[in-house]
């Protein structure tokens, strides 16, 4: 497929003429592919897409989200997932198939105000998102600092194969859970670590579309520029401990990130690719 030059677009901008497949945030008008969002237009695996730079979270099946329990009926919890659709978590998902509204107390498992990590199992135009916590690392989040960022910044915060979030976690000695819906929970034993991590996350959110962000985040966190140096500067025991405690969430994030990369290559992926290629003296 012919590669197009990546460019900045606003809604209505013509990206390219010709027989290309419209992928994400683009439409076909006549013979042209038109952008429908503000963002960066590029050619995907088999078509044209725009990586958006603004917008609210629209649920997608298999997204891992962080939600807040806002209500429950006799059969399900209602969960706020930072979207225009509130999600539902069936009580049977937690109590099992022999759940009885008369016998089981739903408040004992998840009370109003609790935070959960969940996966979206079903969502389409006709019904609200359905959640499940039946998977590894899903379920109630016991403690942590809740943050909200734009959902369009999540891939940037995770970074290529989790590089950005790992940098922040290791430098601040925190554990960071990220939902695809833009909700983030930061936990740590030290409040300074949380504060620093929050600062770094905010920086990523505000400067998501700019180049060399990883270097600036490292500068903010006083991390030497190479990852190996960053690791060696930390006490080995702590790193091991943090890695092991982080691994579930990270592995989750990484898996998710890989999926994101597969379906819609993210800003940072391309940027890092550019940086790498520029180093190699190659063209993207």
């Amino acid at each position, binding site marked *: 497929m012919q590669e197009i*030059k*990546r*460019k*900045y677009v*606003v*809604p*209505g*901008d*013509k990206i390219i003429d010709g027989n290309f497949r419209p992928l994400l*945030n683009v*439409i076909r*008008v006549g013979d042209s592919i*038109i952008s*429908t*969002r*503000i963002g*960066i237009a590029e050619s995907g695996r088999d078509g044209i897409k725009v990586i*958006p*730079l*603004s*917008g*609210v979270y*629209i649920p997608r099946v298999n997204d891992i989200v962080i939600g807040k329990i806002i209500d429950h009926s006799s059969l399900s919890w209602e969960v706020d997932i930072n979207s*225009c*659709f*509130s999600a539902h978590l069936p009580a049977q998902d937690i109590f099992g198939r022999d759940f009885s509204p008369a016998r089981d107390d739903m408040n004992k498992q998840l009370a109003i105000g609790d935070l959960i990590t969940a996966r979206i199992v079903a969502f389409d*135009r*006709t019904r609200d998102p359905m959640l499940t916590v039946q998977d590894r690392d899903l379920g109630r989040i016991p403690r942590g600092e809740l943050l909200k960022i734009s959902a*369009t910044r999540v891939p940037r915060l995770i970074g290529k194969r989790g590089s950005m979030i790992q940098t922040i976690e290791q430098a601040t000695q925190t554990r960071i859970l990220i939902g695809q819906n833009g909700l983030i929970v930061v936990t740590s034993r030290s409040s300074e670590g949380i504060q620093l991590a929050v600062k770094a996350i905010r920086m990523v959110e505000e400067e998501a*579309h700019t180049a060399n962000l990883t270097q600036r985040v490292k500068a903010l966190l006083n991390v030497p520029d190479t990852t190996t140096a960053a690791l060696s500067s930390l006490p080995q025991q702590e790193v091991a401990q943090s890695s092991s405690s982080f691994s579930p969430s990270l592995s989750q994030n990484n898996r998710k990130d890989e999926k994101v990369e597969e379906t819609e290559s993210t800003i940072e992926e391309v*940027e890092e690719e*550019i940086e790498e290629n*520029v180093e190699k003296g190659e*063209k*993207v």
Partner: protein
Amino acid sequence: MSQIKNLIDDQGKRTDGRTAEQLREIKIAVGIIKNADGSAFIEFGKNKIIVAVYGPREVHPKHMALPDRCILRCRYHMSPFSTDTRKNPAPSRREVEISKVMREALEPALMLEDYPRAAIDVYVEVLQADGGSRCAGIAAASVALADAGINMCDIVAACAAGKVDDKIVLDINDTEDKEGGADMPVAYMPHLDQVTLLQLDGILTAEQFNECLDMAIKGCKMVYQIQKQALMHKYFGNETELKEESQ
């Protein structure tokens, strides 16, 4: 219509010193309201308007929700201090009408079917009015909607044209609106080449109508460039092109 003075002088200059085909100075700032999903502030001559967009979000009351698409709600409101004499803050007949035409001018550009059972709210608050506030409001609302990340097939630009001293002029101001012969606000999608709003207050001949419409569309295209520039500035700073392959 009785005219109290010449609105165009011997040199062809208008009351504010513009030529017939000149727009007033336009400035647009994007993302000025943190709590909103998208926002814009426009200065269109002496007009000063803030627009805030919320959504897509849950519809309240729920019975208003549509099963197949999103609903768009617009509220055009003039502040009590926006005019020479105090304006009653309660919604007037004119404001209700402008809210409606504004919604209808924006709807064709929005891909509302992408957000079923949701609502998008657009609040247009006029801080200072000087004629052409609906066009300025539409232009700012369109930018704010793009800032909110709502799927749009084009940006709606808006500009008025009119008849002053039997001459067709672009972007008429308050005095020209009151004393002139006709006022024609137009909203237009430049890429799709479609008109989404066309109103006319006054009397024009068929030739004058065509000339007026052409001039308004020309004005819309100029307004579009400013809208686009404002959006690009907010998201990409002063860069106009992605500098990835420069090295």
